[in-house]
């Protein structure tokens, strides 16, 4: 029975590619949706996907091989050396909440735009020049 740390270290290349690949893919897909999709709600979803990719990256770089969650449970008061980096996780918490706020505001604007134009297609919203 192998423990998680050895498993991680043996397969570090696959894990790196999987985790970073997923994060980059999410960022790129989100960017694509924002730039190319016509439907306003899809654009907002794209923004959220992009944020999700970045949040995944934050958590990934904070991981330390063999580390546990940075919570001191009874009996492990001196386990600080085997813990993962707590700072990126705290930053992600902040970033998620901010991302949520932006998404909520974006959706309210979509509702507004829909009421005025009776469409959510971005090509038909061109009363202002870019």
């Amino acid at each position, binding site marked *: 029975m192998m423990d998680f740390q050895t498993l991680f270290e043996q397969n570090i290349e696959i894990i790196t590619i999987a985790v970073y690949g997923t994060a980059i893919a999410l960022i790129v897909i989100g960017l694509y949706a924002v730039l190319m999709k016509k439907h306003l709600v899809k654009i907002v979803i794209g*923004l959220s996907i992009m944020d999700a990719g970045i949040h995944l990256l934050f958590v990934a*770089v904070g991981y330390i091989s063999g580390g546990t969650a940075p919570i001191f449970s009874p009996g492990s008061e001196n386990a600080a050396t085997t813990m993962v980096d707590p700072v990126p996780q705290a930053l992600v918490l902040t970033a998620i909440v901010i991302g949520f706020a932006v998404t909520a505001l974006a959706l309210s604007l979509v509702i507004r*735009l829909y009421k005025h134009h009776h469409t959510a297609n971005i090509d038909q919203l061109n009363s202002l020049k870019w």
Partner: protein
Amino acid sequence: MVITPVHYIVAPLIAAFAIPLLTKIHKDAARIVPGIVLFYNVVISFFLMNHIAEHGMISETLAGWEAPWGINLVVTPFTGFLATMVSILGFIIWLYGYRFKRTLKGGEVKFYEILQMMMIAGSIGIIITGDIFNMFVFIEIVGISAFSLTAFYRSRDGAEAGFKYLLIGGFASAFLLLGILIIYTQTGTLNMAQIAERMPEVPQQMKIIALVFFLVALGIEAEMFPLNGWAPDAYSQAPSPTSATFAAVVSVAGVYALIRVVFTMFDVEGVNNYLMVMGFVTMLIAEIAAISQKNLKRMLAYSSIGQVGLILISFGIGSNLAVFGALFLMLNHSVIKSLLFMAGSYFIYNTDDKRITALNGIHKKLPIVSFFFALGSLAIIGFPPFSGFWSKFYILISAANEKYIFLIIGILLVTIIELTYYLRVVGRIYFAKEEEGEPASHRPSINALVAMSSLALFIIVIGVYPDLIMPHIQNAADALLDKTNYIQQILSVKN
């Protein structure tokens, strides 16, 4: 010390959280409380400026953890100067907007006041914070308020401008997060002074990629080319006091963030040239776009972008004199552009038409406002004896000292362009034949007049006696360029 920099943020926050309750007690509370808070910010500014003149810069620790462990708020002559400027203008804009708010309904006043006040408080936060992630949070506070205020009138175009601004703002925050991520993995800290201290150890490639992310993100906030497409729409759709705030407060905070990151955090060669080139392109394109505008507020918005371009150019030149000129221009731009937006919005208010052609002969209806607009136009072009002359003068001298001939030619060319489109508007106001003889329906109220005349007074007084303000700007420029001192002072506790 009784007053600390954190009051800048805490007072508006208390007010923002309390306003929904206070409006239940008195219906005018939503309008008056922000005024008190913004005035208190002016008091804090003067107190802190006095304090740092005597005792040197302040680095306030929060939650009891010394920098670099906790978040710190830094007031140097540079940040103090900008914070003072922003809080004074914030108060003047509140004063100007007091009448404007009477035209809104009860529930809306509350929302408007909270958003407007937090936008100014967030800008001050960007300026005084010493922590890069904290700066991100404040940028988002400013952003969320700005998106909402852009769409505040709930018109068709307003919602569209707001959505566009929000999308570009979303990019900015995503790129900023990526930049912070790279920097954090390389230095293990988020304090800007400590990042700057550890920057020489970071591999060159990482440094450049992180810098690019920061430049894209903060370039959006600072209205730098090519990602400034949101600015003209947002400026023209927002309520008028908010347009003035965008020009006078938010763009200052954006430029500050860019300069702080580029000058203090990074030590990459050649980024100065990048700033100079991008500033030049920004300025040229914006000023040329301004000529063809038919909408007054859009024209003023493009002119603002042009001014920001000039500010970036002179930061890019990088000599002490150039930075001095850039800060002087930041001050002038904020003051003059607020005055122009304030006066311009009274034209729009009266004619109910945003187009420039509607201004024919309006000086007979609104003589005082027309005078202020003409004064602001002359000042921003750089006619002596107005304050705008001195900033352009020093920037030209610094460009000449460094032998950037093409910059001098460019700036002079742009001045001619500015001359054309501003004088065209002023000419319409004063010399074109008016269409109808109806008296003005909305004359400026006392508070708006006080706000506009204090700005006009500043423009004239500083134009005649620039020595009144120049020592402060010189201190600010010295503080910005003295990076070693900044790092040492903040990290001194640790060593």
